């Protein structure tokens, strides 16, 4: 195993499943024999605030936090949150962003404006962004909680281990407790993967 450390920053809003996604990524890395550190900052309240989790794995991980400019992937569970952390990426890293727009009360009452096009903002800054509506896929599959699995599926082809290992980590959790959820999670994972590929191809076609 080389000295290369993989840095993944998962971000979103309290209650969206950011911590769970980071936990599943970490457990997959452990199963592949990596040393892992996972750091969480949940802010003050349980819900509604900015949430990030840093997942780092490699042969030996020291610091639990990702240094700005060194993240391989930023996984944004929400559009503006993805843009907020995009500067954490290393040159050539990718931002995988769910295009759902969740408006906080400070925006609703008019104190701040939600940017019109955060994806365009990120691309203008030079960031490689793959974006798609994970919420729409989840609704199609009939369960909004599947966003988590969809987003993990989306990054599965950009990790230093096979997508099947990540999928097995997710599905294994359900096989034990809720076998009825296995198939729909497999579909969610596959659809997330497909959506990310489609976005990548779109981007390549327009470049």
């Amino acid at each position, binding site marked *: 195993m080389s000295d290369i450390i993989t840095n993944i920053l998962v971000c979103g*809003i*309290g209650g969206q499943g950011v911590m769970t996604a980071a*936990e599943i990524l*970490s*457990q997959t890395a*452990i199963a592949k024999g990596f*040393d*892992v*550190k*996972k*750091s*969480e*900052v*949940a*802010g*003050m*309240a*349980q*819900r*509604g*605030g*900015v949430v990030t989790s840093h997942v780092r794995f490699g042969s030996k*991980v*020291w*610091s*639990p*936090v990702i*240094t*700005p*400019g060194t993240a391989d992937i930023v996984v944004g569970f929400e559009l*503006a*949150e993805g*843009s*907020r952390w*995009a*500067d*954490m*990426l*290393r*040159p050539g890293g990718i931002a995988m962003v769910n295009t759902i727009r969740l*408006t*906080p*009360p*400070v*925006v*609703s*009452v*008019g*104190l*701040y*404006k*939600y*940017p019109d096009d*955060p994806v365009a*903002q*990120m691309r203008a*800054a*030079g*960031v490689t962004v793959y974006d798609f509506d994970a919420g729409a896929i989840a609704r199609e599959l009939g369960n*909004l909680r599947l966003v988590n699995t969809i987003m993990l599926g989306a990054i599965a082809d950009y990790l230093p281990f096979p997508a099947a290992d990540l999928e097995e980590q997710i599905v294994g959790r359900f096989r034990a407790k809720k076998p009825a959820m296995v198939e729909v999670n497999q579909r969610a994972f596959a659809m997330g993967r497909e959506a990310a590929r489609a976005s990548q191809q779109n981007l390549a076609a327009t470049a």
Partner: protein
Amino acid sequence: MSAAAVQAQAATRLLLSGNEAIARGVWEAGCKVACAYPGTPSTEILENIALYPDLYAEWSVNEKVSMEVAIGASMSGARSFCAMKHVGMNVASDAFMTLTLAGVVGGMVVAVADDVGLSSSQNEQDSRFWGRFAHVPVLEPADSQEAYEMTKQAFDLSERFNTPVILRLTTRICHVKAMVTVGERDAHPISGFKLDAKRWVLTPANAKFALPRQIAREDSLRAEAEMSELNVVDAGSDKRVGFVTSGPAFMHVRECFPDAPVLKLGFTYPLPVEKIKAFRAQVDKLVVAEETEPLIENELKAAGLYDIHGKDILPRLGELSPAALMPAIAKLLGEEPPPPAAYAKIDPFPRPPTMCPACPHMGVYYTLSRLRKRVQISGDIGCYTLGAGHPWNALDTTISMGASMGIALGMDKARSPETKDKAIISVIGDSTFLHMGMQGLLDIVYNRGNVTTLLLDNRSTGMTGGQNHAGTGKDLHGEEAPRVDFAKLCEALGVKPERIKKVDPYKLPVLFKAIKDEIDVPEPSVIITDQPCVLSEFYDGFKPYAVVDQDCNGCSNCLNVGCPAITVSRTGVRQRPGMPDVELKFTTIDTAMCTGCHMCVDSCGPKAIVPLAQLKEAAQ
């Protein structure tokens, strides 16, 4: 919480947070009594300890009581443990500062978690000071494995040196998950309490005898620290700069400077000054990398090591992350600073924490915001501190746990001509009231203050994740427990029964009238709101509401409730001849988030907010 850690056999490797690792260490050390009051980032230590068999664990009403319970258990010959956040130690310190004179029988470990970077606290104090103040050893783990190991070593140290031991943690220990290899449990049976008045009754005469022993103990601990394997030198190959560091800062240093000599301190008080002096001689420049206060640095300078660096080049506040370390060290070595990150920072808008949809606190703050000009509002610590923010702006002070009532009384006794007619309100939650608030209310009553207290009883320690307390009717394990009657308690403290009102905070007109009535009465009164936290087991959701679009007049009153489920669907402008233009905001309710508390219904003039089911029926 990690049930896997509880079931893990010895030699198993697991991904554990520092808090989970400490819980395992406490159990393996044969600890018999463990207690805490919840406080970020330390809360999960006790939640995890509660999962282990064969030890007593409790939520205590505050940190001082948890310290005292641990002291009583230690006096009785049981290994004991208490955990708290940094500010909790301020509360517990009265008991602690005398315990340090008396010493321990069963090993006693006090875990104190500092919120470096202030993710969820009112200050950023450095708990390493307690070691110097109380003459007790301080151990500082740098990751989960060390947190687990040092917990066990702390119990041994405690018994060997007849002293409580501080295990100093930070958020980056508590809330970082890393690999831990666990071990087996030691027995440590309880030896029982033995009468020894000279030792346990700390009258001045007895305490005088204990003082020299305490000083002598500190000297032996200093010698121990010099020898301790917890203070390790990694000689390194690049001698241009060496580091003395502890806690998570060590991990960041190792990450950034893999070839640098490092003296990693785990046993940080008493400070092994001789060991550090020897290390100093091996490197060109020495940097003390310690988070927040320059304790080690100052102590080294006092010991004659002047030619060292610390806070002259590193930040005084917050974490010493790689982003903070690398430019500072590059500058010290006269090197180019590391290049900036590749991409520009995008800062869309702030997203401060919000109250949850249907949070009963929102009704209180919506009501207070309507009385804003008439009231001064002394606040307290909990989710309801968010009332200081938008859209309510209805909380004027927050200092410490339970301070709302004492501060309100002080404001009442120090009125200026401008504020003499203002009503003074204190706002406090149920758990905080039981923690440190009761005394403040008693002081208001006793000293005939004119304060209206809003006791927001949501049957939960909400901010830290919904822990039980003496007012929820459940204990740490979720078992049935005696439940405080807040109205009776306030009456017993001397508030007149007719001045104590229980109100449903979802009924905004009723709440509004209750507050208005009570602030008009010039004597102590208490309004108790009684809807449970929406995240607690006591909450039953109602059916969601929706906005009838054609009935919405865009007045945006409902947005002032502050509910995150209500958002703007479209905007407009109302123009009337001779009148200024009014910006209109038409709203919509996210039915997936709405839990039907109906507070926004009361705020809506045109009655455009109706049950979703009714809207669907009308559509058919």
